[in-house]
């Protein structure tokens, strides 16, 4: 605070020093120019590195395997070769000669949506409690959650594998949902808590004074105010559950009819009989929902941020 008051006077009379700046030599100008150009080179390089692989994925998914093998260096698709048969092949059920990704998509969707529902159902009350209610051990719980979030999944994999086998939950989608919920609830609580804390307490107290119970306040006031935050938390959980690989592999590998898209693609990509282009179509099918959600949340998040800015 004090430094600001010291700094402001000189910056108000900034005109003379600006004229002085060029005097400081050519080094300055050379570097400035190098930084200006270098910046665009860097941005271009990063764009190529991040976008080309995804372009390559889409490209390969719309050409027949023969076209890829005859001209592997090509980065375009000839109109005569363009095909969507790869998508038909990958999505249709095994019984009709496809790879059964339609089924995998349904499995992934069920698992991810159930995880979102459960994580929010459990996480919203928890986040509200941590943000607002002074219960015993509140601070320690945050620490436990942080540790749970940081702890590597592979370390829980063995006991969960053993335990779920004993309970008969391994090999079922329910087991997967339980694990995903446990993995995402700590993050969900963290995200939601931050939001609940920004809701002015006076609004909630007004609700209490008007005769609402705490739960009534949570349901009728805080939840509505926190809707954007709940949405983005839900989408975040969805993305984690949709992308997850390790537990799907451990729990479901020997039951093809229950594979998720991630597991299906990883299992089938080792096979020589399935053309790479067909698997690329599977890869697009796996990636597309995430990309759509990602661009949707980006806007949602920035929207939430600017809304907060207007108020503050």
């Amino acid at each position, binding site marked *: 605070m004090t430094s*600001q008051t010291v*700094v402001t006077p000189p*910056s108000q009379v*900034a005109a003379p*020093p600006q004229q002085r700046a060029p005097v400081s030599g050519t*080094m*300055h100008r050379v*570097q*400035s120019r190098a*930084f200006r150009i270098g*910046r665009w080179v860097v*941005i271009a390089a*990063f764009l190529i590195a*991040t*976008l080309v*692989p995804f372009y*390559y*994925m889409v490209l390969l998914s719309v050409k027949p395997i023969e076209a890829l*093998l005859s001209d*592997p*260096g090509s980065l375009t698709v000839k109109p005569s070769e363009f095909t969507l048969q790869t998508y038909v092949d990958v999505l249709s059920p095994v019984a009709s000669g496809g790879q059964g990704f339609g089924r995998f998509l349904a499995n992934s969707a069920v698992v991810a949506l159930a995880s979102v529902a459960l994580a929010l159902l*459990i996480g919203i*009350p*928890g986040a509200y*409690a941590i943000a607002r*209610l*002074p*219960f015993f051990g*509140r601070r320690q719980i945050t620490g*436990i*959650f942080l540790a749970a979030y940081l*702890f*590597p*999944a*592979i370390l829980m*994999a*063995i*006991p*969960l*594998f*053993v*335990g779920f*086998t*004993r309970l008969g939950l391994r090999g079922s989608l329910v087991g997967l949902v339980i694990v995903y919920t*446990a993995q995402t*609830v700590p993050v969900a609580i963290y995200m939601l808590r931050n939001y609940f804390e920004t809701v002015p307490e006076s609004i909630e107290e007004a609700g209490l004074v008007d005769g609402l119970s*705490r739960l009534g306040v949570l349901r009728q006031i805080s939840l509505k105010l926190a809707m954007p935050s709940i949405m983005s938390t839900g989408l975040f959980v969805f*993305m984690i559950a949709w992308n997850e*690989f390790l537990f799907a592999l451990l729990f479901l590998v020997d039951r093809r009819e229950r594979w998720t*898209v*991630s597991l299906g*693609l*990883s299992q089938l990509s080792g096979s020589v009989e399935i053309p*790479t282009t067909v*698997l*690329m179509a599977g890869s697009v099918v*796996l*990636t597309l929902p995430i990309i759509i959600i*990602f661009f949707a949340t*980006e806007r949602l998040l920035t929207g939430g941020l600017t809304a907060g800015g207007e108020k503050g």
Partner: protein
Amino acid sequence: MSTAVTDETPTPTKTSAPKKRRTLTQRDARLGLWLMSPTLLIVLAIVIFPLLWSILISFQRMRLIEIGRADFFKPLTLANYERVLGSSAFWNSLLITFVYTFGSVVLAVLLGLLAAMAVRQPFRGRTLVRASFLLPYVAPVVAVTFIWKTMLNPQFGIINQIGQSVFGWDEPIPFLSQTEGTWNLFGLEIPVPTALLTTIAFEGWRYFPFAFLFLMARLAAMSGEPEEAALVDGATPWQSFRFVVFPQLVPIIGLLAILRTIWTFSEFDDIFLLTGGAAGTGVASVQIYNYLTVQRNVGAAAAQSVIMSLVLIVLLGIYLLVLRRRGERV
């Protein structure tokens, strides 16, 4: 909230008013525990309890076929630890894990810093550029590893095609299946662990967005005044980065390094999907998986995972010590 009590003046009616307050607080506290309990239950059951059980299993003999009959009261033994620590594969995989972790963390943070500095000044299309930078991080790991595997394929992958036609490579490079290749640099033949370097490059590509996000947020929150002052005083852009901007980023870089180390050290998906742990990329987590599914030895897998956590904890301890000595708050 609780300060409201002190606002009240000590009047004769005092007895009833604070009492009501306190019961409200007490009710709130009880409700808080209730609201918290489902979360507590699932985290205890699925995270905390398994961690403890994993330690117990590591001291018991357990084969994969017996897990249907697993119980807590089997006799304890050190056999699993003897087996894991006694195998040369363990020490080799530990070394690989260290190299892999160090290389990946440094690369990801450096790339993230470079990207964050590049898009710092506003320009048209910045939002779109920023979103594109995040793609490798948000896309499903199975999809991006599959794309990389295809791009690096020696027969028809685009990288080897371009390498041969544009850069004049004599033969395709088996990026993901070659344990050791030689780089011919000015007549010197330098041996390089090809597959390991490729997986590190993949980690840099996939996780730089994470560092990018954190650093961008820090840069945006940074006051521009010290930098302006430095420029006015004749500092070059490099000097202003080195002496004004960078020091302010050091704490967040330390935090990033810690988080990325935790996650990279135990990374399983990326390596398993890219190389399956072959060609000199058998990191510790892939070994755990192999103990479990190939050797079908649950006890040894648990022992290795416990050892891995201990190494990780020691590593983090050293990190924190170094950071504290340098006077950074983490």
